[in-house]
Structure formats: structure tokens, C-alpha cells
């Protein structure tokens, strides 16, 4: 029998299970199907810091949340409408986040006394009324899977493993999704293990059929494609987009990319990705530590490559001294910090934005560098290209601040026409006309950038280093006035980047707003969603989001001054607010969360509402 079909504008699904249950894969596949179908979407994977925490425990739960809609959306959603829980721990860890009335699909197979105890349940929640607020479907997904695939002669363990595909099939049916893409995917993935492939495909179809056939679900749902800008799209995570951006920057500048990296969560995937594209001329050097990683990247930059180093907060701390050297040497270098929860080891698999001040000030002496941040997973591509452009054109290390949420989250990406991207001009030094002597610290009058003269060119032999140098010649100089001059020049050089950055886009549709909400990085989605909600209530609020954290866009001061209140939501204790307050003496209000998780749009809406209210009361 086929269920009644209801149309929805948006759905938030969360798949949760043990680390080994393949929830990330299920999430990815459902995402892919939704993307191909044409929904707009946003995702939030969430996994434990342990490789595999003990099976069946709360710390071992891994989840994947997907928000898909028939309209443009900005966040993975605050509260799931549907939870798929593969064991008691997954149920317990996630049930509190659901909205009342949400649908819960539970695999009952692991609801044994032992597993309930592991999850901290005294009795099965399926047997009491603790889940009364929800529409619970308790099904033996594992049992049905094992039954469905028994003909393939797999071990019980292997057979049971396909339960995630059963769940995927069931949910695909529930939302009227095709599974053909996934069938093709499984064919590729298990090409060498046909029995496993066939079992997975069978489980997938069995799940779909179970929905279609039984009367478990009275209603199924449809979410129409979203009306988004025309073009070709793909789904992409931030780390992948960032990697592609680096590859693109190499192409646009004609420079080979040299990545020096030491693995660290959540940045390692950039190393993994780049090491797969050697045919782009990329060298991916896994160093002995973060210091060697940036050292080698700096050496490669000195030698005329596009040097890049990728890490997370603790790695940036270790690189600090070498970043200072790069500031002194004035060579291009892209430093990628995929921020995670801190301080120290902190919450390594969670997200945070608490490295902004480290990026700005985390070195000895006056050592300024440009700082750039992406706002969404797909935007990591553009931000990476922009970071490389500044680095190469202005001969400076540049910090690119991504975060764990962007890194692993995904969204549809309208594919750029790479041929149309602007070229990045390395403009290597050439020997001085007339054979005069080469001045490695002569400066471009516009950018204050110095010549970049990789070894190999006769007549440009020169020596540079970390000691203060004489303007022009670059010779060691202890002259007090020269030092003062050079310190101010390095600052002026970074400030000069402001001339080449686009004007700040302020979203204030009617120009009537009195409150401006300003943000940076991955808070873009939640802030945007909250702003929409407020506007839907008929309230005025302006939004601006910074790509450039250093230098700021030239007009930023005027923008801030134009509003009666400026609120800055951040996933830290208010670091951008610190920079803005110092710079513009505007009473920027801090709105902070440090929970290792993105803001909820609902929470943000409430907090912004308070500010709007306060301002209206002040006026009255």
C-alpha cells in the first residue's frame, strides 16, 4: 500500500548510531540524493574524538544532520524533525534536540539490557511513556537487514553491517527519493567485493520496499526542488572546497602548490585531498611536526612555489615563530587554520572561532598579516583563492580561518567556470636594468610589496633573514630609525591590502534598520537564518558579514557608525568584537556561544530580538 503524501517546505533529519554504524555514509548519500533532486541543503556531521569509542556508549555516538528544503536555506537546522537512532545510546544522546512531535525511527535490535545500561537507561524508553512527545517507530532494522541479505552468504557481522543501507532505503522512501545514485555508488565502492555490494544494494532496496509495503508509515513526504540560481551544482564540504581553491590558486598564478602539513583534526582532510592531485603539480609534504610543515612551505615559497600550510589551532600556536619569520621575509604563504574547540587540545572534533586573536596577535613583536575567512562550506573555495591572491600579490603570509563546522559541513555549490577566474600575477623579479645592484627590499609604491626573487636568476643573488633589515638593500640593520620605519612599513603594507578588497556588502533591504548584526566565518548561516526570521516577523535588521578580518574593508567604520546598535555573534568570547571596538570605538555587543556547535537560528533570533527591543525602548 502506498501512504498519503504530504508536501513540506523543509525537513531536518538526523541519522545517529555507533561510530561503526556508517551514519556518515548514510548522511552523505541522502545528501547527495537531495542535492541531485534539487533541494537546497546544509549538513552537520558530528563525530567523537575517539576513533571508536566503546561500542554502544554515548561517547561513541556518531551523527549526521541534514537540512533540505524547497527554498534557499542557510543552516543544518536547529531541531531535527526526524531522528534515526540505531541503538539506545544514539537515542539517548539525540532525543533532547528534537522538536516536539518529531518522528523517531529506532532500530530495536540493540535494545538489550546490556546496551540500555551502557547508554545509561535504567529501563527501555520504548516501553515507558518517556517518548510520548514523539511519533516513534520501533523497528528491528538489523534483523530485517540480516534476513534480507541472507542469500549472500555473509558472516552475521557483515550482514548486519548493511543495516545502515536499510535505514537509508526506508528514509528515501519516506521522502520520495530515488536510490539509483546510491546503487551506482555502492557498485563503485564495493567493486572488488561483489557479495558485500549486492548485500548493501539489497538492504537498501529492502528498506525502501519496507516503507512502500508495510503500513508503518501512514504518511510520506515530498519536499520540492528549491528555486536557486540557474547553473550546474554539486554538493561540497568546506575542506574539499578549500582544497580545490588552493589548486585553483596554483593554476591561476601558474605556481606549483607546495603543501607542508602535519595531520590534525579537522584539517587533515585537506592534506589527504591535495595529496590525491599530484597531476596538478602539487607536492604534499607530510612533515615531522607543524614547525617543519610551515618551514618547508616557507622554503618552497622562497623557491618560487605557492607555499601552503594547513593545520588547526594548536598547530598555529606551534607555527607562530615561523610565521613571524615569514612576516620578516615578506614572501607569499597561505596558512590555513581549520579552527576547533580550544584551548589546548580542547574539543578536537568540534567547531569554534576562537583563533581570530591568535591569528592577529599570536607572534612576538609587531608582526601583522592579512586574515581572511570563508562563510560557508562552498565559500571555502573563494576564500582560499582570495587568501592566495593576497599572499602572492602582496608578498605576505596570509591566515585563512576556516572551522570544523565549515570543514565537514556541506552545501550545494554552483560550479564556477574556472576559465573565467581572474589570474593571480606572481610578477617575479627580474635583474635590474643596466646591471645595477638588486634591492630585495625595494617596494611597490601601491602595495608596498617587495620583489619576489626565487633562486635561479643571475644578478638577483641576495640574502634575507629574520633580523631587522635595511629598507631597500635588505642588509642587516640595527639602526633605530630604520627599525621604526620598517615596523611601520610592514603594518602599512598589510593595511594597503584594504585597497584591493571589495566593498562590504550590507544587507539592509529597506535601509530602515537600527540594529546591525555583524559576523565572520561560519556564523553566516545561523545569523542569516535568524535575520530572515526576524524580517519575517516584520522587524528591521541589517546584516553584514566580513570576509576580511585584517585589514577591514575601508568603509567598515562608517557602516558601524550608521547603526544605533551593533551586535556581533561569535563562537568565542567576542574576539571580532574586540577588534572592532579597539579600531572604531563602537560599543559592539558580544553575543557568544562556546559550545563546540554552531549557533541555533532560533536562539539567535531570540537574542537579536532583545537588542531590537532595547533599541526601540530607548527611542520611545
Amino acid at each position, binding site marked *: 500500500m502506498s501512504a498519503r503524501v504530504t508536501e513540506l517546505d523543509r525537513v531536518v533529519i538526523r541519522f545517529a548510531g555507533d561510530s561503526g554504524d556508517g551514519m556518515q555514509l548514510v548522511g552523505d548519500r541522502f545528501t*547527495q540524493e537531495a*542535492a*541531485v533532486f*534539487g533541494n537546497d541543503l546544509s549538513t552537520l556531521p558530528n563525530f567523537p574524538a575517539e576513533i571508536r569509542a566503546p561500542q554502544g556508549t554515548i561517547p561513541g555516538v556518531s551523527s549526521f544532520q541534514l537540512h533540505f528544503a524547497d527554498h534557499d536555506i542557510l543552516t543544518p537546522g536547529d531541531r531535527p524533525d526526524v531522528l534515526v537512532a540505531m541503538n539506545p545510546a544514539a537515542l539517548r544522546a539525540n532525543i533532547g534536540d528534537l522538536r516536539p512531535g518529531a518522528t523517531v525511527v529506532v532500530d530495536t535490535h540493540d535494545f538489550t539490557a546490556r546496551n540500555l545500561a551502557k547508554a545509561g537507561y535504567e529501563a527501555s524508553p520504548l516501553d515507558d511513556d518517556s517518548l510520548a512527545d514523539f511519533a516513534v517507530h520501533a523497528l528491528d532494522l538489523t534483523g530485517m537487514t540480516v534476513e534480507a541479505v541472507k542469500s549472500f552468504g555473509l558472516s552475521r557481522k557483515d550482514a548486519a553491517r548493511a543495516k545502515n543501507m536499510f535505514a537509508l532505503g526506508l528514509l528515501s522512501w519516506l521522502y520520495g527519493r530515488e536510490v539509483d*545514485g546510491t546503487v551506482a555508488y555502492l557498485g563503485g565502492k564495493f567493486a572488488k567485493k561483489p557479495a558485500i555490494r549486492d548485500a548493501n544494494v539489497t538492504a537498501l532496496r529492502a528498506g525502501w520496499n519496507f516503507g512502500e509495503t508495510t503500513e508503518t508509515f501512514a504518511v510520506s513526504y515530498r519536499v520540492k*526542488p528549491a528555486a536557486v540560481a540557474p547553473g*550546474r*551544482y*554539486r*554538493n*561540497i564540504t568546506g575542506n574539499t572546497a578549500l582544497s*580545490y581553491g588552493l*589548486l*585553483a590558486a596554483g*593554476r591561476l598564478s601558474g605556481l*606549483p602548490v*607546495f603543501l607542508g602539513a602535519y595531520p590534525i583534526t579537522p584539517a587533515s582532510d585537506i592534506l589527504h585531498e591535495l595529496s590525491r*592531485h*599530484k*597531476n*596538478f*603539480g602539487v*607536492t604534499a609534504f607530510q*612533515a*615531522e*611536526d607543524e*614547525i*617543519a610543515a610551515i*618551514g*618547508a*612551505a*616557507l*622554503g*618552497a*615559497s*622562497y*623557491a*618560487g*612555489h605557492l607555499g601552503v600550510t594547513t593545520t588547526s589551532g594548536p598547530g598555529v600556536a606551534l607555527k607562530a*615563530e*615561523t610565521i613571524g*619569520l615569514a612576516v620578516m*621575509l615578506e614572501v607569499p604563504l597561505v596558512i590555513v587554520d581549520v579552527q576547533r574547540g580550544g584551548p589546548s587540545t580542547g574539543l578536537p572534533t568540534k567547531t569554534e572561532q576562537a583563533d581570530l586573536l591568535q591569528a592577529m596577535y599570536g607572534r612576538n613583536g609587531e608582526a601583522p598579516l592579512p586574515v581572511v575567512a570563508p562563510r560557508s562550506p562552498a565559500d571555502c*573555495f573563494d576564500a582560499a583563492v582570495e587568501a592566495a591572491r593576497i599572499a602572492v600579490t602582496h608578498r605576505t603570509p596570509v591566515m585563512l580561518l576556516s572551522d570544523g563546522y565549515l570543514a565537514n559541513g556541506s552545501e550545494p555549490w554552483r*560550479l*564556477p*567556470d*574556472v*576559465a573565467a577566474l581572474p589570474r593571480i600575477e606572481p610578477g617575479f623579479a627580474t635583474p635590474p636594468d643596466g646591471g645595477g645592484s638588486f634591492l630585495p627590499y625595494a617596494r611597490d609604491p601601491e602595495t608596498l610589496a617587495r620583489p619576489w626573487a*626565487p*633562486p*635561479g636568476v*643571475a644578478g*638577483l*643573488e641576495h*640574502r*634575507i*633573514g*629574520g633580523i631587522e633589515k635595511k629598507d631597500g638593500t635588505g642588509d*642587516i640593520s640595527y639602526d633605530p630609525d630604520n627599525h621604526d620605519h620598517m615596523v611601520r612599513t610592514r603594518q602599512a603594507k598589510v593595511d594597503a591590502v584594504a585597497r584591493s578588497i571589495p566593498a562590504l556588502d550590507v544587507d539592509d533591504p529597506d535601509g530602515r534598520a537600527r540594529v546591525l548584526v555583524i559576523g565572520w566565518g561560519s556564523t553566516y548561516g545561523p545569523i542569516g537564518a535568524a535575520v530572515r526570521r526576524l524580517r519575517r516577523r516584520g522587524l528591521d535588521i541589517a546584516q553584514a558579514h566580513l570576509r576580511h578580518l585584517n585589514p577591514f574593508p575601508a568603509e567598515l567604520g562608517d557602516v558601524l557608525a550608521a547603526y544605533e546598535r551593533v551586535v556581533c555573534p561569535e563562537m568565542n568570547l567576542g574576539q571580532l568584537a574586540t577588534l572592532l571596538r579597539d579600531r572604531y570605538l563602537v560599543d559592539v555587543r558580544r553575543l557568544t556561544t562556546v559550545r563546540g556547535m554552531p549557533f541555533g537560528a532560533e536562539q539567535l533570533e531570540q537574542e537579536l530580538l532583545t537588542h531590537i527591543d532595547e533599541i526601540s525602548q530607548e527611542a520611545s
Partner: protein
Amino acid sequence: MTVTDLPVPTVGDEHGGTALVPSADAPQTGKEFTSDQEVRWCPGCGDYAVLKAVQSFLPTLGLRRENIVFVSGIGCSSRFPYYLDTYGMHSIHGRAPAIATGIATAREDLSVWVVTGDGDALSIGGNHLIHALRRNVNMTILLFNNRIYGLTKGQYSPTSETGKVTKSTPAGSVDHPFNPVSLALGAEGTFVARTVDSDRGHLTSVLSAAVAHRGTSLVEIYQNCPIFNDGAYDALKGRDSAADAIIPLVHGEPVRFGAPAEDGRGGLGVFRRPTGEVHVDRVTPGNAGRVVVHDAHAEDPTVAFALSRLTATGEMTRAPIGVFRQVRRPTYDDLARAQVAADRERRGDGDLQALVDGADTWEVR
């Protein structure tokens, strides 16, 4: 200045360290390799002699000057690059091998040199050094060992003898020093040598061998710091003491030294104990045939390691010099470049649009 006239072996390697570095069009002179910067070491510093030797040696390589890069860390010796009219980088303390790894891997057409001190290389920079050796990145490392921190005015270093009284160890240091040759061999070094600042001939011959070697060549240079550790190597340099103190290693030759014995060669020799270790003994007609014959090319580093242990651990009263080990092993940078080339060969030059597009796309109209 003592001069020990020792031929140092060069592996006839068509893939030598500078095989891919372009050659100069015309003969060069030491003067061309001398920069306009004033040399600023203390009077009598051993660094001067090494600088002179390198400035005279570089032109003999016949490489384009612009394809030579010197990278250093921080320390007195690390000022070296400023005095050479090549490309140079005076970086930060201990990190030169890491930076040089990036340069050497990025560019096969450069001759990459690292200049470092015992503190720079073995204290703060120890990790980068051992990893460079393990990886075998094509570069030549000159480790100026004066057994002291010179630039910071005289604290003990990881090569200072136990009991050393310095500013930071007024009661004498209590830690056991590294033997840089043993350490390098333990770190899988493919070329490990030692020489002395004051012996231009030996120094130059060791440099020749080091540059000829494709991979990481570590050359420990015993260097006198007249200001903070004067005379550290006097025993190896003294007119009377040197002959009995310096143990010259020459590939293919029996390791003999000291005042001549009856057969006209050194009266002292290195012998193997039944258990495999080596020791020094007087050579007699009876035992002359058992003197250890040095084999720098042995695949197994054990014998080189054994020889390294002949180095005095306290006051420097005796030490082998020469090339302890020189074996071929593919270099990190060659292999890394080969992987890039192979991937290009196999898949064609990367198609950015295709990559960006990926496999799973959809069209919105």
C-alpha cells in the same frame, strides 16, 4: 693550522648531489662568491677558516652561482650565508633543515646547503635534523661544532663534555653529550662525515664528497670558539698531539695513524674486538694485517657506528675524521618529484574544471 693530507673518497655517481644543477658558463673565482658584507665573527674564530675554504671550494664545482642556496639557523656560524654571494636565508633557530627540505623538494635545479651549529642543529633543531637524515633530502649540512653556544655568550651545548663549567652550569654540566656521528647514523643518515676547521685540505675533500653525494650529507666540522670554548680541539691540532689524536678514515684503506711504525705507516691502528666493537692499538708487524680497513660504502651502518664510538666523550683527546658512511638511497625529493611526474604521466595534467565539477552534479535552470 694542521694539515692532514687525506684523499677522501667520492662515489662516482652520475646521479650526484648536483647532477640537476645547471653548470656555469665560465670558470669562477672565490671572489665572485664573496658578498659585500663585512664578516663579523670574533678575531680568531674558526668560522673564518671554514668560510674561506667554502669560498674557494664553491667555484671548483662549476655550478651556476645563482643556483646555489645557503640556509642557516641562528648562531654565530649561522651568519655564514651573508658572506657568500649566492642566494641565502638566515632563518630562525633550529629550523634550517626544514626550510631547506622545502627548497630542495620544490627545486631540483638548486644546490642546497644548510649551515648550523651544535646548538642550532642538535639542541633546538634536533628533530628536523634527524628527519632530514631519515628522508635523505638532497642537501649538504655543515654542522659547526664548537661544543658551546657562541652567540648567546657561552652556555653549554648538547656536545659539551660532562662537567663543563659555563655561565649556565657554574657547578659543571651533568648531562652526557651527543656524539653527532652516532646520532646521525642512528637516524639512518646516508652520508656522515667529520672534519676540522683548521685543516683546509681535509675540509675541502670532505666537502667534495658531501656535495657529490645525492641525499642528505651531514658534515660535522670541529670548530674552535676562541672566546667561549678556546682550545676545545687543541689536542687534535697540536703539533705533537695531533698525529696520535686524529684517526683518519679513508675508504678502502686500513685505519692507521700516529707516528709511523716499521712499515712506514701510522704506528697506531684501529682493530676489531671479537665482539665487533673497534678499539685503538699499536700496530705491530704481527697485527698489521688485522687493522680495520675502512668501508664507507657498507650498506649496514654498524661498522661506521663502531668507528664513531672512538670519539672521545669528554675532553676531545681523540676523534676519527673523514667520511664514516656514504651509501646510496633514493632521496625524498627525487621520489616526491617522481610521484608528481608519474601522476601527470598517468592521468595527464590535472583538469581543474573537471575536478571542480566532480561526478555528482545537477543542473538548475
